[in-house]
């Protein structure tokens, strides 16, 4: 079996401008939704109390809401979680409230009837949420710096910059989706976003490896031709790899239940946009930044002894 039978290099770079404009529009849209709608943070970030309750029969949400309201819980959110028998209740954080709140909510639920079984309780105080948001931002920063430094060291600063721009654009787009659909942004989703960042940089690395190799081996090709060749010769690997990873993520989406739903969703968006951006966004940026053959020929002379001629790369 062989899916990709490509005779000539596909002239991706001829349409570079188009790709970049598409990216720019999606990016601006994502930023727009992030700014206007904001992310729907889980209680891990905002603080508050969450109860997952299981009923033996389909739960009467309206009744639960009324009971909670009459017991003095304001702004509570009562929704189904996974199935009609499972209910998720969120109570926002209020000044002076402590962990005891969950017990009062439980008492209220028992009063509403239907024999609720508490499956999960989470209470997060205000100080924890704030720290999580800060730590998340710091983690993101560390990933960006780490990747840029590594790529600049292994390749060239132009590659590092374009890889990180392309992949940050992925991250913003994932966040844009979460803002647009108001999906819950929880800690596992944050983990997924950062994992995607590391993962889709892979993609750019594979293409860049080829770009460098082609520059060294083939004389007389223009920069766009070199990039086209690199993308074309790695496209089959790109699709197969991402397809395989996506199979795993799809399986998580189907079998993982509600707890892994948004995690898998974030990965799905990340993988799909990762293919697009790392190939069709990063490469044009490298081109605009003015990558050329000379940069690698010069670099070759500077290489320490013992390194293989082609820089030990594909």
């Amino acid at each position, binding site marked *: *079996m*062989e899916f990709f*039978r*490509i005779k000539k290099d596909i002239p991706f770079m001829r349409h570079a401008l188009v790709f970049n404009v598409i990216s720019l529009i999606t990016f601006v849209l994502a930023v727009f939704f992030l700014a206007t709608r904001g992310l729907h943070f889980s209680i891990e970030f905002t603080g508050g109390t969450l109860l997952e309750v299981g009923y033996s029969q389909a739960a009467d949400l309206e009744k639960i809401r009324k009971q909670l309201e009459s017991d003095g819980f304001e702004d509570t959110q009562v929704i189904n979680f996974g199935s009609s028998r499972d209910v998720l209740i969120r109570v926002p954080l209020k000044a002076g409230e*402590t962990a005891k709140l*969950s*017990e009062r909510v439980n008492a209220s639920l028992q009063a509403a009837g239907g024999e609720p079984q*508490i*499956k*999960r*309780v*989470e*209470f997060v*105080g205000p*100080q*924890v949420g704030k720290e999580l948001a800060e*730590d998340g931002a710091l*983690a*993101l920063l*560390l*990933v960006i710096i780490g*990747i840029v430094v*590594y*790529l600049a060291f*292994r390749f060239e600063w132009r590659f590092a910059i374009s890889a990180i721009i392309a992949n940050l654009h992925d991250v913003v787009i994932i966040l844009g989706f979460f803002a647009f659909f108001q999906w819950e942004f929880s*800690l*596992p989703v944050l*983990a997924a976003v*950062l*994992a995607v960042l*590391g993962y889709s*940089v*892979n993609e750019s*690395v*594979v293409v860049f*490896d080829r770009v460098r190799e082609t520059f060294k081996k083939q004389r007389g090709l223009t920069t766009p031709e070199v990039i086209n060749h690199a993308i074309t010769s790695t496209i089959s*690997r790109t699709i*197969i*790899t991402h397809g*395989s*990873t*996506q*199979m*795993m*993520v*799809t*399986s*998580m989406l189907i*079998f*993982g*239940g509600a*707890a*892994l739903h948004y*995690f*898998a969703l974030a*990965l799905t968006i990340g993988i799909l946009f990762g293919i697009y951006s790392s190939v069709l966004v990063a490469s044009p940026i490298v081109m605009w930044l003015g990558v050329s053959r000379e940069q690698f020929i010069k670099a070759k002379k500077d290489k320490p002894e013992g390194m293989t001629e082609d*820089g*030990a*790369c*594909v």
Partner: protein
Amino acid sequence: MNRYPLWKNATVIIALVLGFLYTLPNFFGEVPAVQISSVKATVKLDTRLQARVEETLAAAGIQPTGLFFEPHSIRVRLADTDTQLKARDAIEKALNPEPADSSYSVALNLLSASPDWLTGMNALPMYLGLDLRGGVHFLLQVDMKGALTKRLDSISADLRSLMRDKSIRHGGIVREGNTLVVRFRETAIRDQAKFALTENQPDLDLLEKEDGPNHLLVATLKPTAQKRIQEFAIKQNITTLHNRINELGVAEPVIQQQGADRIVVQLPGVQDTAKAKDILGRTATLEIRMVDDEASANLDTLQAAANGQPPAGTEYYVERGGRGLLVKKQVVLTGERLTDAQAGFDGQTQEPAVHLTLDAAGARIFKDVTRENVNKRMAILLIEKGKGEVVTAPVIRTEIGGGRVQISGRMTTVEANDVALLLRAGSLAAPMEIIEERTIGPSLGADNIAKGISSTQWGFIAIAVFMIAYYLLFGLVSVTALTANLLFLVALLSLLQATLTLPGIAAVALTLGMAIDANVLINERVREELRNGATPHAAITAGYERAWGTILDSNITTLIAGVALLIFGSGPVRGFAVVHCLGILTSIFSSVVVSRALVNWIYGSRRKLESVSIGQVWKPGAETK
């Protein structure tokens, strides 16, 4: 020729064998067990207790499948849940004849069912997080400011008595925030006071200040002292929590410091959060009361009291030495007045002693009581679960002022330490607040495991089917390498006993999905070399060698993200990051070294290799010709 040197083949085989051995315990599952641990700090586990447990089980006709003695618990492994319950009841009855006043906690637990030789080589099943096994998780914030103010209050009492002893006249000591302000009329007296304070209170930084007619001495705690006090406070609180949680009879509680001022408490299997919260927040109280010496001296009265008829206004207690005594019901002081208790030595006789520190109000009361009761005995009681226990009952020799109390006489160093610990156990060094709580029901935990495993399983099957269909024998090699990766990952997680959570299982799945990338890269490279007309052997060599650089680069960038998550992540994110990082490391080894070893075993020894089974290799030239 594609052959690995002997050492490389040996490495692969050894790694696979070790991986298999350490993964093995996860397949044996768990068997029911009963765990016995001490509830009281005064009761220690020893081999005598182990013998008693054995006797009890034998008497009840229960044959345990294993009995393990560990420093803090005795574990009895049993055949099934029925015998587990029977054994629990039998042991409970034998060790705790009075249910209201139990010395041991007898809890139901699960132990690994893997054979002893595996357990002997430290091969244990993976350690499941609370979201997979069910239980309660609390994050407690220790109020460090509270610890400092408490300490400053006790220092201010010390200063008062110090200046009184040295006849230094001051115009009052006030605590203002984190400072103590002492007023003086004259600078000369202030200098005198400053000299005395520097000598006696090395923890204080002193600053002179003028305020109208008053001359002030402003004392603050030195940063090193503050740090020490805070460290002590958190250790103290952890000790207290340990003592309290023991009462709950939880099999494997986790009580750990997190960061500078937080404590994590995890109670697997506990569902009753209300009770857990109650116990965590409760202050076991300490009471100082007077002993009714006259009544205690009368043997008849004592005998009657032991039989449940103590004289009016008194209660009967048994001292730690076993002698009975009658204690007045009236409480002189409670544990709230106690700021510290440390074991040490008597300054003159060098006997082991316990030094207590009382706060200002406590010191005043104590002074009055001791003045009026010289040569009488006082009892220090620890009230746990509504039941009192006499920690010690010393004789008052002189009036004691200044809030510094020393208990000495007829004590060994060990006893002095125990008493100090017991006294401290009654109180928390600083107030605490629950800032995070997570409760997961056991059914949800089992559900999470099932969902996590089935998503990994189906994803793996899908990838395996595709890889074998697309790359044929090389696909099979890739899938075998991926299986080896899973084996290594599970073995590492079991070996390190890293906590596996649901995000951790998701990370296993994701890492496997990403790890196949390396094999795709290699297989595509080999095909490409074949397409360009290389011989099969050369294609394999070149494919692996050229793919290596890319694999390394791409894995390192992924690893950077993983490490960032590991550093900054907490809770579920950390669980994800640990598995993700380990998975990247194992995947490099398995996808490159293990798969190459397999390919070498299959093709390496064939001298004349016409073709390799890697699926169809399409050549662009073939159709145009």
